[in-house]
């Protein structure tokens, strides 16, 4: 298990929780995950759960950024089975820069889908939409069934009508190149 948390104060929280529970199979990395390798500005709003690289606020700090592709190449991971992606409005950037991992591992993604601020990422949403074509898409819902299968066009249709919509998605690769 690898957890990414860039801000110093937030980084200490999972680190302390993991050590105080005696867990030895979780590594916490103090880096931003995005489409960029190098230093990147992280905006720090008052709510520590909303630190973001795209949602601007008065306070900010510079943090090291890495792509999932690069991290996997630099480490010994043969398989990546699941990624939870809660990058506070930069989720598309994380997904777009995982082409190598997806090709090699075909892992499932659980991600927050809140397109309210995505245009600020200055990326063509079509690129992200094309990435989503590789997955079977499920909306996570609060019901005994937990997930509901939806089409890509349905997903973008509902967000087109109501851009403040926020839901969690489960993305399962349509073609798994490796199976475990």
């Amino acid at each position, binding site marked *: *298990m*690898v*957890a*990414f*948390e860039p801000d110093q*104060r*937030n980084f*200490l*929280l*999972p*680190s*302390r*929780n*993991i050590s*105080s*529970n005696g*867990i030895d*199979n*979780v590594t*916490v990395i103090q880096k931003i*995950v995005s489409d960029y390798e190098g230093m990147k500005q992280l905006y720090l709003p*008052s*709510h*520590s*759960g*909303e630190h973001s690289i795209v949602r601007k606020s008065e306070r900010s700090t510079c943090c090291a950024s890495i792509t*999932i592709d690069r991290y996997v190449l630099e480490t010994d*991971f043969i*398989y*990546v*089975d*699941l*990624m*939870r*992606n*809660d*990058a*506070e409005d930069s989720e598309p950037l*994380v997904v777009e820069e995982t082409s190598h991992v997806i090709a090699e591992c075909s892992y*499932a993604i*659980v991600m927050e889908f809140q397109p309210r601020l995505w245009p600020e990422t200055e990326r063509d949403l079509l690129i992200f939409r094309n990435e989503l074509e590789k997955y079977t898409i499920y909306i*996570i*819902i*609060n*019901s005994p069934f*937990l*997930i509901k299968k939806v089409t890509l066009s349905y997903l973008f249709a509902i967000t087109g009508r109501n851009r403040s919509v926020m839901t*969690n998605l*489960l993305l399962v690769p349509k073609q798994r190149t490796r199976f*475990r």
Partner: protein
Amino acid sequence: MRSLKEFIRLFKATNNWYDVVFAELGLRKHPIICFGDGLSVYYYDGAFSIEHFLERPYDRVNSRGRDAIDIHAYYEDMAPNFALWGARTFYAFEHNPICYQMALRNLSLNSFRNIYLFNEGVGSHNHIIKLMDSRPSIDFALKNSGENGVFAALAKREVYEPSTLEVIKRQVRKGMTTFDVGANVGWYSLHLSDL
């Protein structure tokens, strides 16, 4: 700020009501509050409801000569009340080590010999539970987050995003590699670490 009625109630019930006011204003840290009936407790700002001691909701329960159990005792406001009203034996369980220490300090202020406090949780079967710690920013987050997010859920002792957690748990099996981007307090990382 308290209303005049609340101040009058506080004044009547406690011997040192001014310490409560000082604590609420941030001028005193963890003062000992002494109640008229002999009960004393530490005042923990943010974790303590003085109203609990003023209203004494457990007084309505007839505990005289009976045994009582308090599961998730927190800072233990219940045991002294019950002991005061004649409960035979009182067993209290608090799993959180910080709250356990708070409860222990409160019990040590009062000379009850029939209260047994355990630093253990109570559940449906014997197992080790994981505790989440978000102390550095929990009060701050609650004040600024509109009471949402993982901090608020933990403060209310709720499961954060239960559906998403369940979906992720069903996807992950033992030995799998998972990435948690935007881990925050590590809610998902901790839950997945022992799968």
